[in-house]
């Protein structure tokens, strides 16, 4: 009987509900909201569902799957050994504390999600997702009309505008309290590119990773709702009705030269963008070469799916109550929306300029596709264009700025990382 009661007592004391507090309960309820958005509303469900489940798991007490304290240099510092050069036996060793993490402790004490989170922290998953994206993307429309690159660049205006906005928020005293690194991580939401946002945030402000990933993927899912009003507001019916000429056919050699040239040019100017742009182009080269069919299939399917699961569930796991339930999250959601809207507006406005310069041959609606969010943003351009003129087919024209936006946001992330990283 005594064994029974002590076992029961031990079980009771280690039960999760003992450790539940109001913050955990709110986070668990929030994860249920994300389940609803992923399953019922189908908002980017492939990532939203794993993110929601990661959020649920990490906020259930005593599961030991994820330990936020292991990922903070303040609570898990790394002490670098410094050896005396004259001592061949390395007896005289001193240790200096560095602003880095003790990964040995992560491996020793970490749970399952800590292990998987290493892939985010060590910048492994986002480039691998880019490998799959590159293996799936046809850059033909961009090669056929290189001017599309300009629209892809203009739409990145949302990133830098929001960077200023986040800094300005500190000044107004309304709240926020974002450091430069945090402001840059929030601003990258304007790139409308999930892996890029995760890549940059994991380097600059890992404590905001959960909030930024949820905001970025939510807005990407809401592209068909957010963009059309801005596109209609900034364009006239006459501009929206412009039919663009057919794109020229792109040869296989051009498609093979493209990824190699982009990798070399971008990496030589912004080396910090190479992990994203380089791997994106590697995936594309495998596809266009036509000699790596098996590898391409793996990159497009199995590898991409595995990484998506790991990335989603671990990013969700970082959304612990102490990080997520703060005013910062509210400001991140507002600033993320501003970033998206300004990015769309910048793309459309440059599209309008190109409409004038080209003698009314370019439909400004394709400019909004420059915010990446492939292929959703291009679909929105197609949809809004066909609403004005049902016989107008802008999809392939919008794919140019759309894929240029992927390269543009990776370059923007590289620029921010280069200066603030």
């Amino acid at each position, binding site marked *: 009987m005594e064994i029974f009661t002590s076992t029961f007592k031990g079980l009771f004391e280690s039960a999760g509900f003992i450790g539940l507090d109001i913050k955990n309960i709110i986070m668990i309820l929030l994860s249920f909201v994300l389940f609803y958005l992923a399953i019922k509303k189908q908002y980017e469900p492939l990532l939203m569902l794993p993110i929601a489940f990661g959020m649920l798991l990490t906020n259930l007490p005593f599961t030991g799957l994820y330990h936020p304290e292991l990922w903070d240099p303040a609570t898990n510092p790394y002490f670098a050994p410094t050896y005396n050069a004259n001592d061949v036996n390395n007896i005289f060793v001193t240790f200096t504390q560095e602003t880095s993490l003790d990964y040995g402790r992560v491996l020793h004490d970490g749970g399952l999600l800590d292990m998987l989170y290493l892939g985010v922290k060590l910048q492994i998953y986002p480039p691998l997702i880019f490998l799959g994206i590159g293996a799936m993307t046809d850059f033909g429309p*961009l*090669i*056929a009309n*290189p*001017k599309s*690159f*300009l629209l*892809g*660049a*203009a739409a*990145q*205006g949302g*990133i*830098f*505008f929001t*960077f*200023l906005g986040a*800094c300005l928020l*500190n*000044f107004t005293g309304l709240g*926020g*309290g*974002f*450091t*430069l*690194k*945090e402001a840059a991580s929030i601003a990258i939401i304007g790139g409308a590119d999930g892996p890029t946002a995760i890549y940059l945030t994991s380097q600059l402000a890992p404590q905001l990773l959960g909030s930024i990933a949820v905001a970025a993927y939510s807005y990407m899912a809401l592209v068909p709702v957010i963009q059309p009003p801005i596109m209609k507001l900034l364009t006239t019916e006459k501009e929206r009705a412009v039919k663009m000429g057919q794109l*020229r056919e792109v*040869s296989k*050699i*051009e498609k093979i*030269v*493209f990824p190699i*040239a*982009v990798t070399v*040019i*971008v990496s030589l*100017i*912004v*080396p*910090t963008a190479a992990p994203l742009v380089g791997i994106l182009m590697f995936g594309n080269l495998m596809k266009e070469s036509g000699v790596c069919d098996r590898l391409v299939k793996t990159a497009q399917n199995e590898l991409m799916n595995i990484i998506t699961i790991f990335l989603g569930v671990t990013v969700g796991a970082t959304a612990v109550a102490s990080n997520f339930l703060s005013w910062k999250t509210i400001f991140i959601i507002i600033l993320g929306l501003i970033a998206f809207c300004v990015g769309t507006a910048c793309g459309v406005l440059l599209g309008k300029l190109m409409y004038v310069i080209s003698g009314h041959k370019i439909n400004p609606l394709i400019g909004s596709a420059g915010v990446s969010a492939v292929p959703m943003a291009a*679909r929105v351009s*197609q*949809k809004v264009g*066909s609403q004005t003129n*049902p*016989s107008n*087919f802008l*999809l392939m024209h919008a794919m140019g700025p759309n894929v*240029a936006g992927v*390269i*543009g946001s990776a*370059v*923007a992330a590289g*620029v*921010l990382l*280069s*200066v*603030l990283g």
Partner: protein
Amino acid sequence: MNALMMLLESAGADGGAIERLQNLPDAASQLADKDYWSSVGILALTGILVVFLILAILIFFFWLMGTIFKAINRSHAENKASKDAAKTEKPAAPVAVQAEAAVDDEEEIIAVISAAIAAYEGDGNFTIRNVVKHGGRSAWSMAGLSDNMRQF
């Protein structure tokens, strides 16, 4: 120091100030720094300019590549056309066949249009006086395209 930091300095920002700002522990102390706004402004401006610069270089490169490939393709096509012209020195018969084929095609199209109208009208009490081809996409190709694009 990386190239972008040097670019920032040449744009007027104090590179040391950005590094100093990053070492400050929180937003409030960063905001209190005298170089905060100049650093933030120049960083944002330089950032968007660098993105434009890189993508402009890519535009130039791929425009050049496209021009070269278009020229190569055009000369290939011209060579092929002149070779084909040299090979076929018996124009009379093929032209007649082609013309016949074209007439057959047209008759076939008119027959299909007549059948479609008959099916639509329900009786054969109508006369087709003229069939004129419109420029651009045909109604059928437009319907097919619209159907394919509906999913987007």
